[in-house]
């Protein structure tokens, strides 16, 4: 299930609801990304996220299909915020269930790498010094490239 929402959400409640519907899965992995007040720079007072309505959802649907083709997982849950957020608020929540933990861990990792580097979201930081659009770090691209490298190896 994919949900892109301008409203805040409660990760605890979402995880609990997800757990109710996973059947006999032996493993559930969840990841929560939150707005950080980055202490290395001028404090982040807010974050603004945009997406490409229709297209972003379609790409995430294809991502979900790809993850399910790579690992033996159930339908994952992906919740992504858009709009205005403040430090401490959840931005993204991914839940993956599977019969075995390795599939769940790897699929969640894969989904997050994709969300960081390829999914159509744009993030703007608002700090006491001004505003700036954020780009993925080199490490984010490296992390995402691991899955392509693994494809080549197989």
């Amino acid at each position, binding site marked *: 299930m994919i949900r892109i929402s301008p409203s805040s959400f409660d990760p605890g409640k979402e995880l609990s609801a997800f757990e109710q519907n996973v059947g006999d899965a032996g493993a559930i992995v969840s990841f929560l990304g939150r707005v950080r007040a980055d202490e290395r720079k001028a404090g982040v007072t807010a974050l603004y996220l945009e997406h490409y309505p229709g*297209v972003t959802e*379609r790409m995430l649907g294809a991502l979900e299909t790809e993850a399910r083709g790579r690992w033996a997982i159930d339908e994952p849950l992906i919740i992504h915020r858009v709009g205005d957020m403040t430090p401490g608020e959840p931005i993204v929540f991914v839940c993956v269930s599977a019969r075995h933990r390795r599939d769940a861990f790897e699929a969640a990792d894969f989904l997050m790498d994709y969300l960081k580097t390829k999914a159509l*979201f744009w993030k703007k930081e608002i700090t006491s010094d001004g505003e700036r659009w954020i780009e993925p770090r080199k490490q984010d691209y490296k992390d995402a490239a691991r899955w392509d490298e693994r494809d080549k190896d197989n």
Partner: protein
Amino acid sequence: MRELQIGDSVRNLRELVDLIAKGDERLGAALSEKSVQTIINERVSTGEAISDSDEIAFLPPVSGG
């Protein structure tokens, strides 16, 4: 906002970016960045070919999560 006349000679994304670069070198260079994704008719482009009435979007580097 600027309008650009695209003739029949532009058949693919590379030629389109080249045409844009002729009018604005900086914009042409920016659109050639690897981190820029291209969407044709609301789908991530898998090829370079474009045709009349296509809607083409050049997207700046993304940053979700």
